[in-house]
C-alpha cells in the first residue's frame, strides 16, 4: 500500500509542483514573449512612426529635420492629399458594406444550418481562396475584368454588354474596361477581404441561441423584426469585428489599386511612394496615422452605438 503522498517521478512532476505553488510563474512564462513582441516591436515601431509624422522634410535639401512641427499634418489637408484620403475612405466603406451584405447570408447559413460535412465544406470554401497567393488572385481578377476577359465575353454573348458600358459611363467610375475602372478595384477588394468578414460573423451568429429566435417568433415578431431586434444586435460584435478587418485592410492596401483600377492614388499607395521614390518619410508617416485615427473613431462610434453591449 502506498502512502498519501507520491514521490515525484522526474523534473516534470517537480515543475508542475512549482507552477502549482506559484501560479503567476506559469502565466509570466506564457505571456512574456508575446508581451515583449507587442510592447517592444509592435508598439515601439508605432511610436517611432508617430514621432516621424511630427517631423518635416526640408524642401530644398530633402533631408528630414528632426524638430517637432505640425507642418506635415497640415500638408495632408492639401487638396490632392485630401482627395487620396477621401477616396480611400469611400472605397473602404463601400467594400465593408458590400462584404457585410454578401457575408451575412453565408455566415447565417453556416452558423444555423450547416452540419458535419457541410460545415467542413463551408470552412474549406471560405478559407481556400486564402491559401493561394494574393498577387495571383489579383492578377486573375485583372484578366477576368479585362475588356477581352471572361466577363466581357459573357456579356457580349448574352447581349448584355450595355450593363457594363452603362456602369463604366457613371461619373467617377469611368474606365475603358472594368479592370481599369474603380468598379474593378471595388470588386477585387470585396473578393479578397470577404473571408475576413464571414468568419467573425459566423462565430458571432453561432453564439445566438435558437431559443432566442423562437422566443422572438413566439412573441409575434416577423422574420424581419426578429432580424432587426434580435439577430442583428446580438451578432453586431461579430459584424464590427469583420468590418474592422475589411475596413482597415482596404485602408492600408497599396497593391490592388495599383493593379486593378484607374491608378488613382490610395493611402497605401501614397505611403509606398512617399517613403520610397519621394523619400518623404514624415509625410508617409502622417498618411499612415490617418487609418489609425479613422479606426479609433470608428470603434468609438461603434461602442457608443452599443455594438459591444452583447459581449
Amino acid at each position, binding site marked *: 500500500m502506498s502512502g498519501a503522498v507520491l514521490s515525484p517521478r522526474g523534473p516534470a512532476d517537480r515543475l508542475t509542483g512549482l507552477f502549482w505553488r506559484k501560479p503567476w510563474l506559469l502565466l509570466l512564462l506564457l505571456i512574456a514573449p508575446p508581451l515583449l513582441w507587442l510592447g517592444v516591436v509592435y508598439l515601439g515601431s508605432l511610436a517611432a512612426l508617430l514621432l516621424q509624422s511630427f517631423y518635416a522634410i526640408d524642401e530644398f535639401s530633402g533631408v528630414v529635420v528632426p524638430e517637432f512641427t505640425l507642418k506635415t499634418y497640415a500638408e495632408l489637408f492639401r487638396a490632392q492629399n485630401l482627395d487620396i484620403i477621401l477616396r480611400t475612405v469611400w472605397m473602404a466603406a463601400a467594400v465593408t458594406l458590400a462584404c457585410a451584405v454578401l457575408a451575412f447570408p453565408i455566415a447565417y447559413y453556416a452558423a444555423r444550418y450547416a452540419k458535419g460535412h457541410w460545415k467542413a465544406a463551408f470552412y474549406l470554401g471560405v478559407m481556400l481562396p486564402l491559401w493561394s497567393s494574393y498577387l495571383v488572385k489579383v492578377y486573375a481578377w485583372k484578366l477576368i475584368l479585362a475588356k477581352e476577359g471572361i466577363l466581357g465575353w459573357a456579356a457580349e454573348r448574352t447581349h448584355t454588354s450595355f450593363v457594363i458600358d452603362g456602369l463604366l459611363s457613371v461619373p467617377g467610375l469611368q474606365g475603358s474596361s472594368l479592370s481599369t475602372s474603380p468598379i474593378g478595384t471595388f470588386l477585387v477588394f470585396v473578393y479578397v477581404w470577404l473571408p475576413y468578414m464571414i468568419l467573425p460573423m459566423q462565430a458571432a451568429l453561432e453564439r445566438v441561441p435558437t431559443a432566442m429566435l*423562437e422566443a*422572438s*417568433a413566439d412573441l409575434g415578431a416577423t422574420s424581419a423584426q426578429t432580424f432587426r431586434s*434580435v439577430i442583428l444586435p446580438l451578432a453586431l460584435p461579430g459584424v464590427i469585428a469583420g468590418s474592422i478587418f475589411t475596413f482597415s485592410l482596404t485602408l492600408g492596401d497599396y497593391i490592388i489599386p495599383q493593379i486593378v483600377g484607374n491608378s488613382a492614388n490610395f493611402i497605401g499607395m501614397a505611403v509606398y511612394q512617399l517613403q520610397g521614390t519621394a523619400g518623404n518619410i514624415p509625410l508617409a508617416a502622417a498618411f499612415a496615422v490617418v487609418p489609425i485615427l479613422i479606426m479609433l473613431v470608428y470603434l468609438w462610434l461603434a461602442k457608443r452605438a*452599443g455594438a459591444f453591449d452583447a459581449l
Partner: protein
Amino acid sequence: MTPAVEFRAVSRHFGPVKAVDGVDLTIAEGAFFAMLGPSGSGKTTCLRLISGFEQPSSGQIRIFGEDVSAVPPHLRNVNTVFQDYALFPHLNVRDNVAYGLMVKGMGRAQRHAQAEEMLALVKLDGYGDRKPAQLSGGQRQRVALARALVNKPRVLLLDEPLGALDLKLREAMQDELKALQARLGLTFVFVTHDQHEALSMADHLAVFNEGRIAQIGTPQDIYDRPATRFVADFVGSSNVLPPALTRALGGPEAWASLRPEAVRLAATGPVSGPVTALRYLGAGTRVALRLGETEVAALIPAGQPLPAEGETAAITFDPAALHVMGGAK
C-alpha cells in the same frame, strides 16, 4: 365549450424516430394541464407543436376550434415560457417584457406602462432597468413569465418552467404559478419530468411514454389508478407486482400496483422476504423487501419501529389500495 387545445391523431416523425406517435388530446379552457414523461417521451415536442415550432407529420391540431396546421408561430395567440427563459440579453427587463407589444407596433410609453404592470404582477416592480444577466434564476423566470403574459395569450405554454431552480425556490414558484393561473383564468400547459410537480400543480395531466400518451386523467386518477405498469412506475415510484405475486397477496392473477405508503410491515403474512435496504427520507423511511423476484418498497412513517437490514418481514395492506392494471405495459 370549445376545448383550448385539441390533438387529433397527431404524429411528428423525425426520420425513423417517432417523437410523437398518434396522440389524441383535449385540453379544456382554463385548465392547468401537465404533460409528464421521461426525457425523449414526446412531451416537449407536443408543446412545440402547440406553439408552432414543430409541424405535425400527420394529424390535426386545433386551438380554440381553429385548425392551426398552416399557422406560423408568430400568428398563434399562444405564448411560451422557455426552459432556459431565452431572455434577450441585450435588452433590459422592461424591454424584454414589452417585446411582444413592440413588435405589434405599440408606442413606447404605452408598452412600457403595460410592461411595468406585468412586472408588478410577477412581483418584480422596480427591476425594469436591469439586464437579464443581473437577475437570479428565479427572477429571470418571472421576467419570462411576464414577457409571455403581457401579450394576453389564450394559452400559456411552459417548458420545464421550474427545472433550473433550486428546490425551495421551485416550491415557492409552484404555488405562485398556481395562484397566477387561478387569478388569470388562462389555460396553462406545462411540460415536466417531475412527477411531484405535475401531481401538485396540474388539474389534469397526460403521462407520455415513447411518443404516446400512456394515461390522461386527474392527478388522483393517475396516482391511485395507474393504467399501465409504466405509469405506476414513473408516477411516484409505485410497487409493480407481477401476476403471481398479486395472487399470493390475495388479489387476482394480474399485474397490479401498490403504493409504498399503503404497505405496512408485519411479523407474519402470506408472503415474506428479507429486508434489502433502508433509506431514510426524513418524514419516513423507505424499506425495501425482496419478495421472490420482486422488490417491494414500504414507506414507514417516522416514529414507527424499523426492521434491521437482512431481517425477514412480511407485508400487509388495505386490499382497497391494490390497483389491478390488466395486461397493458
